[in-house]
């Protein structure tokens, strides 16, 4: 870990300004991803701005009947919030499927959205990686890929986004609220928030340098059974091989988003009309154009069967 200076931010806009002016500055929230990566010098900020004191730790009802989740709300608190449990069950389920109790006590809403891939080559600074070091090559392609992506991948990167929470938020059509250094605010639909790797896998989100997340807004609740199924080898404390966030109405229609398959939470709205026709039909559209490796091709079958299980369980 390189040396860095440390400051506690006093306002979101001033924090944004500090980072906007300094390419080597970063925000730190729970620190559970950033510090992990700083220890390995995958992240090397020289200045950290602690955003924990900004008062962004509240969950409030919106005028439109949704919820506004402060960027600093801890994963545990979000999962436990009565309104979230009642009206956005898929989100609670996704949150508690992630990481561990200890980590969720620290992890924040914004930090969780911005956590970086768990591609093992990204984590080893001896290995070429376009995401870590643009232009150096992708070691994963042709290497160990069991955990890696099957849709939306590129010749430069096949990493996945590891968040569970984000998959549920994608199914809920959440919006990411930000402030830039000049005080300008943005509302970024979650669909546009994470990017596909393309030729620039190191650019992962729609955020500008210094743009700070202040909240995530959920639209009014979506009726139906809320399910989050996370599939992994060990029973807990493991990243998803595949996860499925689904909201299923009694008539079999609804929404589906996938985790563990792409560089972003994966949802194709056009596939959802097929939900009453069964998982196979949905997956044909949802995973259209999938590019798998010998090691991760099982994810196609797994995603389909996981959805099939959900559709079966939510029937009637």
């Amino acid at each position: 870990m390189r040396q860095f200076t440390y400051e506690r931010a006093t306002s979101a806009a001033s924090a944004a300004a500090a980072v906007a002016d300094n390419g080597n500055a970063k925000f730190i929230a729970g620190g559970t991803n950033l510090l992990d990566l700083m220890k390995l010098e995958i992240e090397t900020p020289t200045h950290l701005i602690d955003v924990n004191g900004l008062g962004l730790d509240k969950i409030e009802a919106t005028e439109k009947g949704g919820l506004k989740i402060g960027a600093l709300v801890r994963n545990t608190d979000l999962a436990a919030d009565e309104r979230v449990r009642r009206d956005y069950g898929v989100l609670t389920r996704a949150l508690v499927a992630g990481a561990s109790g200890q980590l969720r006590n620290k992890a924040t809403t914004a930090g969780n959205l911005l956590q970086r891939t768990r591609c093992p080559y990204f984590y080893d600074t001896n290995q070429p990686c376009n995401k870590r070091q643009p232009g150096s090559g992708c070691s994963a392609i042709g290497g160990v890929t069991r955990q890696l992506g099957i849709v939306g991948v590129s010749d430069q990167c096949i990493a996945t986004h590891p968040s569970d929470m984000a998959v549920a938020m994608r199914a809920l059509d959440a919006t990411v609220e930000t402030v830039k250094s000049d005080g300008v605010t943005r509302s970024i639909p979650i669909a546009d928030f994470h990017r596909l790797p393309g030729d620039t896998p190191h650019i992962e989100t729609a955020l500008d340098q210094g743009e700070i997340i202040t909240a995530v807004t959920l639209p009014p609740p979506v009726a139906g059974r809320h399910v989050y199924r996370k599939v992994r080898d060990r029973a807990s404390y493991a990243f998803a091989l595949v996860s499925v966030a689904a909201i299923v109405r009694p008539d079999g229609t609804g929404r589906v988003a996938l985790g563990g398959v792409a560089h972003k939470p994966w949802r194709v709205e056009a596939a959802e009309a097929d939900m009453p026709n069964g998982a196979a039909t949905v997956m044909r559209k949802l995973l259209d154009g999938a590019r798998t490796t010998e090691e991760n091709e099982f994810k196609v079958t797994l995603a389909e069967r996981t959805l099939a299980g959900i559709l079966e369980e939510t029937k009637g």
Partner: protein
Amino acid sequence: MRFDTPATNNPIDQMKVVGQAITRIDGPRKVTGTATYAYEWHDASLKAAYGYPVGAAIAKGRISSMDVQAARQAPGVLAVVTAESAGKLGKGSLNTATLMGGPEIQHYHQAIAVVVAETFEQARSAAQLIKVDYVEAPGAFDLAAEMENAVKPESGDPDSAAGDFGPAFEAAAVKLDERYTTPDQSHAMMEPHASLAVWNGDELTLWTSNQMIAWNRAQIAATLGMEEDKIHIMSPFIGGGFGSKLFLRSDALLAALGAKAAGRPVKLALPRPFLMNNTTHRPATIQRIRIGAGQDGRITAIGHESWSGDLPGGGPEAAVMQTRLLYAGQHRMTAMRLATLDLPEGNAMRAPGEAPGLMALEIAMDEMAEKLGIDPVEFRIINDTQVDPEKPEKQFSHRQFVECLRLGAERFGWERRNPTPGSVRDGRWLVGMGVASAFRNNLVMKSGARVRLDREGVVTVETDMTDIGTGTYTIIAQTAAEMMGLTVDKVAVNLGDTRFPVSAGSGGQWGANSSTAGVYAACVALREKIAQKLGFNSTDVTFADGEIRSGNRAISLAQAAGDDGITAEDTIEYGDVSEEKQQSTFGAHFVEVGIDAYTAEIRVRRMLGVAAAGRILNPITARSQMIGAMTMGVGGAFMEELAVDKRRGFFVNHDLAGYEVPVHADIHDQEVIFLDETDPYSSPMKAKGVGELGLCGVAAALANAVHNATGVRVRNYPVTLDKIIRDLPRIG
């Protein structure tokens, strides 16, 4: 004391203390965080500086240049040591690769430098400033590809044969010929390798986390070119080892080199992401098993071949060993072949040989039983043998293998198993049961101890034995208490210090039996001395309730000790008796698993382990060894695999997020049964080991249960959902 003839009645047989369920005497320290591990000696006068290792970024080749200037000048840095600046280093006979690489690099993350700084943060960041250029050399990293180049190892008894296997197998009515693979595995003990080194002139004191400190001292001496008596090692608490801490590793060497260069005590722990390629692992195997049997289920021919790889100078994973002894069958062969691989060093991990060997053999037995239409428990029973099948003149000292199977089957409810695969459903879950045999040889090792009786009537035991979680502190206290007629609170135990008599150390599941036998020997000597001092006839004394008694005389031990106390020391040494009979430990594992009918997720529902392993010295700690091993077996069956990058030659998932081991949620009901037995051939303690036996066969039982649940036979470990999902019944 020489152990030349089978044990007869002795004070241990009283079982007033030995064999009792006594909680760990070191427990209160461990649960309050006051047990001190290697990195934690805070004596203010030490003021240790911090070492941080640098590892090779390539698997094979040479360092062409190395620039340590920036690191040397970094804030707080006290020293940087590389192979070049370290001076001449030897290599311990127990290491395959050198612990300090450069210019030649033998494996990925081989240590090539240590940076010493005032603080941990400074050392870690300065280590990143070392710039290294390499010339890479092509290496061999793929065991399957190297199989054809594998050779017969020069030592280690690679082949065995009896009868005429080939024709007998061909002629068998029912035959199986299959190939199985087991992956590279990591010990993944919770405490990383760590050492604190202090030099005083040319004398080295080392607090280190090591299972075998006498070996370790010899290896350090060889590596640093020192006299052994100039080295003092302490290892009183060890945060797990499983074989990974049998040998000198880079933490100790780098701490010693760093401390010398910095002129300061230095402590160093191997960073977790570095540890898995830097240290040793259990090597992967490819195994071919052939079994021929008659329709009656009697095995007529059994053949087991295994291929594994290691660095030049390394050895094979002895995966065929159990097959030489476990089942009857007139015609037999086993063979081990060794390929050269440039992956990190392969070496012992809990139940080396048997663990991966049984992973394969016990699936093969399940497959054979299925072919024969015989219940898998029954099939194993039919093929029991009471003699070494390769040397029928040699009997087992004690073999209650069939008893383990029968009792286990009864307790587990084996009769409820539906032999038709894929036929039991519990809601979302496909449910199956599996069984496998457990087998591990019983090794005995010379072991010494010193015991001192003081005027408080307290006996203090000193031995360089280690407790790696095995419960050694407690069973040694129980042994001394039993021998001296005391309760355990009147016994103090000091372990893990090279100033104490050399013991068996912790390895090969020999620790409990051998080290307590050493304490037994020392206590026999102490009893003699006490009797002598008091003028009692030593053949006619009893030690009970804190007293020594003879006829109608009774004197308290405190009084007998007097102000000077009485000290005795002895070592148990094993004569031919351990060779006369084949000594092994036996068991059976029964498991039930559920497989999600949709996602193919595999979850263990319940486990039962039955063991016949001689006298159980403490049922609490022995049970813990068993459940711990069974848990590791779940890992081996369903998740553990060091994933090899076959192009770059390293284990890719080299941390605890990438290399998954079981967590709480993976482990449901676990039950353990020990058969009541004593084995007079093993030692005066009549005990054997359970720490490795508990792991043997577990993974195969689980794989067999997956087959019973789904009808899918997976022969390549780990058995993960991707290997079965396509063959599950269609849904929706």
